[in-house]
């Protein structure tokens, strides 16, 4: 990776954000709604990328962090009647706490064991949601009632069910997280993470505390995923156990692999691409899981660096 001039990288990212902002005014209704959802899910992918792309830890259980945010925010609105900002923070706090606990346990393992342990913890989380169906709604899930999704600041009120408000809220979250990840990967801590990915023993020998660096990355990753989940619950008004299932642990992996692991913008590109492929394909066939499966195999076989990873390797070495 060649040394990047910070201005170039920040300009590119601000350009992407500006483009998304502009798209809000030109997109037809259907794609407008879809893109809002994609931006929230891209935040999920960015959180996943923090751990998978930069630290090289392949987790098969990130759905639990997304679901922690989803249920943390959704249930505190539904059952406790909390206001939206408070509920959003509650979702994020749930994800941060969960990722701390899971990190302390799962990071004792490496490689294949780490994947299986994270998958099992996610399964426990999923089954727990089903077990407490009285509060979580189990399989059916719960709908966050529309009146609860209005944000009031004194005289002005923001209705999160309004498409434009929803789009802009999603964009705001996306932009903040994008800039945070950019700052993290350019920081000293981010470089240590990449060093751990490349050679953990050597990094340890150089005097870095690899465990606490990995734990920090895990918490950042889990918290970002929880923020995505919390936003999803509040913006789209639905919490359901399917978001905690194995499939939602695999999807961010697919998005990141497609867009390019360890690239800041890859998560967005992968999510947009895959979401549209599935959306278009489901117009013709209900067998969209087939496409997910084939995409996963083709990616690892022929295209392991993903879209942006390949572009960076061939042409744009400075891409963060």
């Amino acid at each position: 990776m060649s040394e990047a001039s910070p201005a170039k990288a920040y300009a590119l990212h601000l350009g992407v954000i500006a483009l998304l902002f502009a798209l809000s005014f030109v997109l037809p209704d259907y794609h407008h709604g879809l893109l809002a959802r994609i931006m929230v899910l891209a935040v999920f992918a960015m959180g996943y990328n923090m751990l998978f792309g930069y630290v090289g830890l392949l987790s098969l259980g990130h759905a639990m962090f997304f679901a922690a945010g989803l249920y943390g925010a959704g249930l505190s609105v539904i059952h406790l009647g909390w206001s939206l900002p408070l509920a959003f923070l509650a979702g994020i706090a749930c994800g941060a706490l969960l990722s701390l606990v899971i990190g302390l346990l799962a990071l004792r393992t490496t490689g294949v064991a780490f994947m299986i342990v994270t998958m099992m913890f996610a399964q426990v989380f999923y089954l727990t949601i089903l077990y407490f169906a009285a509060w979580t709604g189990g399989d059916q899930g719960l709908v966050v009632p529309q009146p609860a999704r209005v944000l009031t600041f004194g005289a002005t009120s923001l209705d999160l069910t309004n498409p434009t408000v929803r789009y802009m809220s999603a964009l705001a979250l996306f932009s903040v997280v994008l800039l945070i990840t950019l700052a993290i990967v350019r920081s000293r801590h981010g470089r240590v993470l990449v060093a751990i990915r490349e050679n953990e023993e050597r990094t340890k020998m150089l005097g870095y505390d690899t465990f606490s660096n990995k734990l920090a990355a895990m918490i950042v990753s889990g918290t970002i995923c929880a923020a995505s989940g919390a936003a999803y619950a509040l913006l789209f008004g639905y919490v359901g156990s399917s978001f905690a299932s194995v499939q939602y642990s695999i999807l961010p992996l697919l998005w990141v692999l497609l867009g390019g692991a360890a690239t800041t913008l890859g998560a967005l590109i992968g999510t947009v691409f895959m979401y549209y492929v599935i959306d278009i394909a489901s117009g013709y066939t209900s067998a969209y899981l087939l496409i997910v499966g084939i995409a996963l195999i083709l990616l690892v076989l022929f295209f392991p660096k993903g879209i942006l990873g390949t572009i960076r390797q061939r042409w744009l070495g400075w891409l963060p």
Partner: protein
Amino acid sequence: MHFGPHLLLAALEGLVTSAVLALTALGLSLVFGVMRVVNVAHGEFFMLGAPLAWAISTAIPGHPTVGFLTALVIAPLIVGAIALVAERLVLRRLNYNPEATIVATIGMLYIIQQLALSFYGPEARPVEPPFSYRILLPWFGYSGYKLSIIAASGLLLVATWLVLTRTKIGLIMRATQYDSETAQAFGIPVDRVYAGVFALGAMLAAIAAVLIVPISQAHYLMGQDPLLLSFIVVIIGGLGSLRGTVVAAVLIGLSDGIISVFFSPTLAKIIATLLVAMVLVFRPQGLFGTAPR
């Protein structure tokens, strides 16, 4: 029913689960032991056995025994062939890299599941058992077929053990497991051993599914629970240890049977999964395994 007979019934049900689980987990364990590949699609190879058994047994007219026995031979062979193709086309090209193969087998999981849904459909369909003799115990009658599952599984496990420990094929497999590079240097076709082991693992799972299908029904999602349970068994038993796998399968099957009779099955699964995750965190070599070299 009183507590004693109730417990006996739960234990018998648990033993049937154990028998099927031991076969499935043995397949997973062999593939992991020899190839160091975590096969996430293993549950789908298990599942494939069931719709194939249904298709074969309904296609063959006459007494159900004929259809069932044909299915018991043909279905695993078909599944083995599918696994062989998957291994040649995908896993070998990835050089058996642990992380890439996990992603690839996740892909296979989705493909197989979706194809089963498209061609077989969402219905659960029964397969008639080869015989319907009931053994009368003093407290309740018990299906003779279920007892024969336990016997069949036991026979297959002993056969696998004999092959692994007493034959040249077994020696080659163990040599590959112990050190594939040295094995290769001694002229063992490691590449072909890998292909064979992957197919064998899938076939063991398919046999287990054919055995269970007369008492459970064939459904395209039936591979999910066995996958998780097999992981649990293989981890508890110690990755790649045959004896550990069998002991753990009996332990998990029995406790699963007994706990599900007396408590909520979801709670039983939560506790079991959590305990196993903890085993993996604090004792990664498994309860019966030896520390890795």
